């Protein structure tokens, strides 16, 4: 009996040791994976920051104003003024003929199973 208890204790000790060893290595692997992911996230954030800064730099009002001036011949952009406000009833209702013309397709159109209907 005593031999059995000793044996079981010894075996369970070996088992726990093995388990702890494996857990330790898995944790280490997970941590290094987390570290790698975080450095990826950091690098992505940095790229994103650079892109956002570049976007802001390219869209700065001074540059847009200069571009509008340079391209005045083609775009004819002027500063927004109060006489450009319109009322909704100043907009003509689109005529039906235009709409039907636009709806005519050339050739066949494939529809996906979600949007398509059986003929």
């Amino acid at each position, binding site marked *: 009996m005593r031999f059995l208890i000793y044996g079981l204790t010894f075996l369970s000790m070996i088992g726990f040791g093995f388990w702890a060893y494996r857990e330790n290595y898995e944790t280490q692997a997970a*941590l290094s994976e*987390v*570290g790698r992911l*975080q450095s990826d*996230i950091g690098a992505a*954030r*940095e790229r994103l*920051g*650079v892109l*956002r*800064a570049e*976007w*802001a*730099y390219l*869209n*700065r*009002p*001074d540059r847009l*104003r200069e571009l509008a001036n340079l391209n005045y011949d083609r775009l004819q952009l002027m*500063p*927004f*003024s*109060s*006489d*450009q*406000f319109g009322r909704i009833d100043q907009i003509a209702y689109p005529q039906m003929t235009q709409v039907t013309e636009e709806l005519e397709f050339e050739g066949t159109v494939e529809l996906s199973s979600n949007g398509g209907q059986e003929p």
Partner: protein
Amino acid sequence: MNRIPLRPLARILHARQVGENPDAIERENLRIRHEQMRDKARQRAEGRLLVMGVMFFCAFAVIGVRMGHLAGSEPMEPRAQAKGASIAAQRADIVDRKGRILATNMETHSLYAHPKQMIEPERAAKALAGIFPDLDEARLTKDFTGARKFVWVKKKISPEQKQAVHDIGEPGLLFGPREMRLYPNGKLASHILGGSGFGREGVHSAEVVGVAGVEKFFDDQLRDPTREGAPLQLSIDLTIQSAMERVLYGGMNLLNAKGAAAVLMDPYTGEIVAMASLPDFDPNDRPRPPVSGSPSDSPLFNRAVQGVYELGSTFKIFAVAQAMDLGLVNANTMIDIRGPLKWGKHRIRDFHYYGKELSTTKVLVKSSNIGTARLAKMVGATRQQEFLKSIGMFDPTSIEMVEARTGKPLLPQNWSELSAMTISYGHGISTTPMHLAAGYAAIANGGTFIKPTLLKQGSPQKGPRVMSAETAARARAMLRLVVSHEEGTASLAEVPGYAVGGKTGTADKPKENGGGYYEDKVIATFASMFPAHDPKYVLVVTLDEPEENTGGEARRTAGWTAVPVAAEIISRVAPLLGLRPDIEPVQLAGITLASQ
């Protein structure tokens, strides 16, 4: 346990035989036994103390070693915690009210040298001086060949410069990652943003700290890692700010002014939608503070928040509104304006002769100093002080900039009746244009004082009431007449569809060394709101030493200088703010001009 008997029979018998006292043997044995017990207890206690000592030593040794390790090692990002992933160590961005970037960060590099590792220090110094023209070759050579082990060469270098330095091929020249603050819009809103510099610097990183403006005011918040890089959202609108700065710059040049300031504010929320002060600077390359001359001439000086000026007749509306609020006069009460008005040896005069008497409305429309001085006399110095205090004219503005506390109003030391009379038309009290905007906002929003703020607000502020809503409405109607009436001083401010109401103010500039005022230098101000019947925005424009020379003689009054600039700003900015041109209601709160 093996115990020695206290009365061993052999020794007792022997003692009886020789006639000794057997009790002595017992006492002797008892003594020996007690000594043994005592020795044993002491040994055990000593053992316990030793164990305790060892345990304490171990515990303190562990703590000490750990502390030493923490102090001596480079800080590491915590990786095992789940929350660690969201820590953003960067300084937070600053964005405008629509989320457009005003300030952000860029990765760049710093350049430093380890002269002991250098192979050809002289060649490296020469090549560096070739790449960076601002570096001195002789000084670099001295640094590289001397006893120093570490030399900073450049704090920030561009990728091209980095490649060029790399191509020198000198192993003693090293690069460190460095974060720098970038203001992509250049000079735009420079006074609001302020600027930033480096705090504690290391080879691997450097602290970016704010040095002025909101960057400094919100420094802790911007650097707080627990906010996870959430941007700081200001109330500024980039488009409006840009349009306003451009018009103001044009106006300043056209009118030969030395400087200019403008504040555009929402009178309900207190949000500053745009604020400009010219001349300005580029926060990416913030100039050093001037060491000589007047600090107010430096581009770093924010005229809108730091500059305290006598803002002249723009203050008249406060005297008129208070007199109406107290029930002393109404809009049609006739006021004696015969001059000059004498008080002691002082005389108060009007700019022109306006007749013997004018209605309260006309006193404001024609800007009569004598008329408002009489109103101030009726109100009295004490009540005037209370009123001006309630609209924030006594303290620096609470706007979120470090410079704001330097804009402390200048008040008379002894608030006599004469002071009350001159202050009623804006002389003897010096405030910033921001103070004036807050005061006009109280009239615009129906009589409550609100604090101007640079942070985006979700809802209107609930400030203390400083005048009744009816008084505010009447005051607005009067301000509208200053612009719309043909005799008004601000008739050039008429912008079709936007019903501008406002008051001009032209104040002579005091001489820097004291001793009176300049005769040919003025501060011209126009404080306005639009549309006057339902104000959505308050605009204050101030020009420093303007001069309009298109006529025969130089004209400096605000009506010819600040007013047209303000009108141009409104006509440019109002559509951008989404205000549709509107037809003004015909009857303005029952105001009629009685003296017509």
